[in-house]
């Protein structure tokens, strides 16, 4: 899918995104976690540009790194939850979770290794770069995916109503 400078950019962005993910997981302060996640999303957006998906990259930055993470930060600060952390040490369920997590990682990496060595992903010829402009993407979206598009609209409406119902303060409580 490319060589030379693209390899360098990929390695750089891969390292940044992995480092940001690790920092997000281990940072004590939830606000720091959110900011590390923004860095992770931005690095992935750069990878989308490399992968001939400029519009998806822009959506990633505006919707994910922008809107969704602002929502996260808003809620963290609204709750004052930045310091709320596991106050206890390792207890039973956590040890169990750790074992499950390790098994999961091994399975995932093993599955990937299997796919690359025996499954044949990555073999086969290189396909040509296709037109992935917003116009082409929109045409594909509305020619082949009209029903899913409409269903997504209904889903968003349901989410709006759900959020309004959840966060409404009942008069008797107040």
């Amino acid at each position, binding site marked *: 899918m490319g060589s030379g400078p693209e*390899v360098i950019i990929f390695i750089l962005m891969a390292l940044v995104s992995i480092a940001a993910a690790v920092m*997000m997981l281990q940072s004590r302060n939830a606000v720091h976690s959110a900011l590390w996640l923004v860095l992770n999303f931005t690095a992935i957006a750069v990878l989308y540009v490399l992968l001939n*998906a400029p519009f998806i990259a822009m959506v990633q930055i505006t919707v994910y790194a922008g809107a969704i993470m602002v929502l*996260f930060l808003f*809620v963290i600060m609204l709750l004052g939850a930045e310091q*709320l952390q596991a106050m206890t040490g390792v207890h039973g369920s956590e040890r169990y979770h750790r074992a499950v997590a390790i098994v999961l990682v091994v399975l995932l990496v093993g599955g990937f290794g299997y796919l690359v060595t025996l499954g044949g992903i990555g073999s086969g010829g290189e396909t040509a770069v296709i037109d992935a402009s917003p116009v082409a993407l929109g045409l594909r979206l509305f020619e*082949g995916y009209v029903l899913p598009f409409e269903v997504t609209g209904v889903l968003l409406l349901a989410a709006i109503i759900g959020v309004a119902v959840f966060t409404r303060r009942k008069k008797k409580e107040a």
Partner: protein
Amino acid sequence: MELTINWYIALSAILFSLGALGVLLRRNAIIVFMSIEMMLNAANLAFVAFARHLGDLDGQVLVFFVITVAAAEVAVGLALIVTIFRSKKSINIDEINLMKG
């Protein structure tokens, strides 16, 4: 060196694993939620990589839908967290055990 789809799938697998680790190991509900977002992102990266590899736009269209659903899911999930915090004064997922039989 040639940049192949394998590299992208490997990165996607690593990010997904890190997200799964976060879901399993962290106790703060908001951090767990962010980890879920990271797993969705890893899946998106795999989608776009395969779209590029196969020369097909459908993968990118699917990423579109994933991002939309993720946005809706974040809104509902954070509303749930706010509601739980109001009643229990905590978002430690070990203390949210009302459904325990």
